[in-house]
């Protein structure tokens, strides 16, 4: 089962390598990883998407929490949550017809064209991972995808629940 795990950790050099190392060392899946400092810049927040049964997820949670640099960990998929992923896609726009169709598709998916050259459009789109997958599939039928980059999932719990130090 797919899980989204949030981790609050010290923003120290080497801290991230401990997390990544742990996943490979213990044979856990690491589908995506999104990390940046938070408002208190001494801390970083990571969002990890992984796949595993309950026993594996329990071990991942415990092992990550055991790292000295880690303050808090929570499985967002345990409760209701908001998750978003950002993607930049560069598509080839070889004709006006393709350009029009690309623009229409971008509008339908509530994306934005953020860069234009005579040969291609660069599109920014945000949403759940499923939505981004669907966008890529649809777009591939209209225009050639030159390259794309995704941030990986980031997420927060809904409502009052919060992960603070």
């Amino acid at each position, binding site marked *: 089962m797919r899980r989204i795990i949030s981790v609050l950790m010290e923003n120290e050099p*080497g801290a991230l390598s401990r997390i990544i190392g*742990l996943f490979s060392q213990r044979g856990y899946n690491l589908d995506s990883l999104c990390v940046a400092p938070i408002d208190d810049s001494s801390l970083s927040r990571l969002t990890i998407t992984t796949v595993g049964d309950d026993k594996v997820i329990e*071990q991942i949670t*415990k092992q990550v*929490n*055991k790292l*000295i640099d*880690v*303050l808090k960990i929570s499985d967002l998929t345990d409760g209701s949550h908001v998750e978003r992923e950002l993607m930049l896609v560069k598509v080839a726009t070889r004709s006006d017809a393709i350009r029009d169709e690309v623009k229409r598709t971008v509008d339908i998916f509530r994306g934005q064209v953020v860069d234009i050259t005579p040969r291609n459009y660069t599109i920014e789109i945000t949403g759940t991972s499923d939505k981004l997958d669907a966008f890529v599939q649809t777009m591939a039928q209209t225009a050639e995808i030159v390259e794309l980059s995704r941030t990986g999932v980031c997420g927060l719990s809904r409502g009052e629940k919060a992960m603070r130090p």
Partner: protein
Amino acid sequence: MEMMSGAAMVVRALKDVGVKHVFGYPGGAVLDIYDALYAQEDVQHILVRHEQAAAHMADGYARATGQTGTVLVTSGPGATNTLTGIATAYMDSIPMVILSGQVPSMHIGEDAFQETDMVGCSRPIVKHSFLVKRAVDIPDAIAKAYYIANTGRPGPVVVDLPKDVVNVLESHPYQFPDKVQMRSYNPTIKGHMGQIKKALKTLLDAKRPILYVGGGAIACDASSLVTELAEKLHLPVTNTLMGLGAFPGDHEQCLGMLGMHGTLQANKSMHNADCILALGARFDDRVTNNVQKFCPHATIIHVDIDPASISKTVNAHIPVVGSVKSVLTQFFEQMHEINETERKEQLADWWEQIAAWRARNCLAYKTSDELIKPQQVIESLYRHTQGDAYVSSDVGQHQMFAALYYPFAKPRRWINSGGLGTMGFGLPAAMGVQFAHPEAVVACVTGDGSIQMNIQELSTCMQYGLPIKIISINNRALGMVRQWQDMIYKGRHSHSYMDSLPDFVKLAEAYGHVGIRVDKPEELDAAMARCFELKDKLVFMDIAVDQNEHVYPMQIKYGAMDDMRLSKTERT
């Protein structure tokens, strides 16, 4: 504030932490620190012959005392040579701090001479690590390293010190922190009261309970509490390889070690128990055998300071996170008066059953007139040390024989590499023990394979006058490998023999020690007596034993805990 160089800070911080002994080897990147060591007498440095041995010495020191062991090595090969020692300590949760030199900060990443990424190399086998970037951070990093190493579940911590940071030519203010506090590190020591009540009720109601005691009970010095609990509740007790001595091996309620080479009574009792109270043990594969068939009737109560150890392999029905010491103290607070007669009555059938298993006398073995049996050697060692020595061990058959035939009555007396199974551990570990307890009798049980993995330390023993007694069980083979080849590979002994062994007696003498060769059963006791009469000498006992002896009992692969071979021809 006092001003001093980074190198002086390292030595001063060690003193402020309370370090008495440092095991190490100098080199380019740590010359400044070695210069600072030269000018003082608070911290004694012990010069080893190989950095791996330095790590094992610090490890043995820590196991025998509970205090954190300290290693000091240079960058590159000095640092990487300690890795096996660090992994050994990590697997057995031994508190250790490794100070490693590093190339100057400005050269990190340039593949400079003797550069390795020590923090990276050691990352999967340390509890934590520090790369110190500024001299003023040294006291804080060292204070934290020792705090982390020896709190919660203990483990090794690396402190990597670039050469420019410890430069003797620069001065910086030194301030040692009064108290270490880390917002991201707060191990749970006390158990959850609700869980404790539940655990206690289950334990008291059980008809076939057993205590399964591991190294965690020794790490937090909970042995007397374990014994008190066992006696109060009349419980049978089995110790893991790491837990030997946590509950006295010569106690009438002790069933001996459990697991792959555990006793019949220990494994049978585990398999048939209706309640297992695991104290600081981690249900590893050398205990459980096939997890799917593991103890089908038992409610499992698992007390461990490391939440990640709970339900990792075997699911715990009642998990209790906390130190064995705190949790047992809480147990006693919750326990009502126990009626001894009623209690014994409640467990009478269980003890009767256990007595029947014990009657099989699974450790019995046949002696011979011509060949010494390895079991005899350990029994002789036990007699000549009155069961009260510190015994370190290497890895292999001799390790299992020592674990089974030397019933340790006290904790911290059995010093062995349990989790990693590191050959070459025994001698340097014994040396660490001897530094911690200069007056104690320290024996190293080893074999002709293991001893050669760190034999160069005989030189260090001479330099520091360590009167260790090396009991080398020489079967001219890698005994445990050979045993498996006999059992599983139809006796095809692929590279498990030792051709052209040295003359160990002469070798010991060449290093300035005493060597004694024994090959006849009738000579064994007299030779052992002579060995321990030579109190101030290191004695190397080269004891030729029967090459074909196997360690029994032995669990049968893929089976349950109690599926065992009892001899070459018998099984359960």
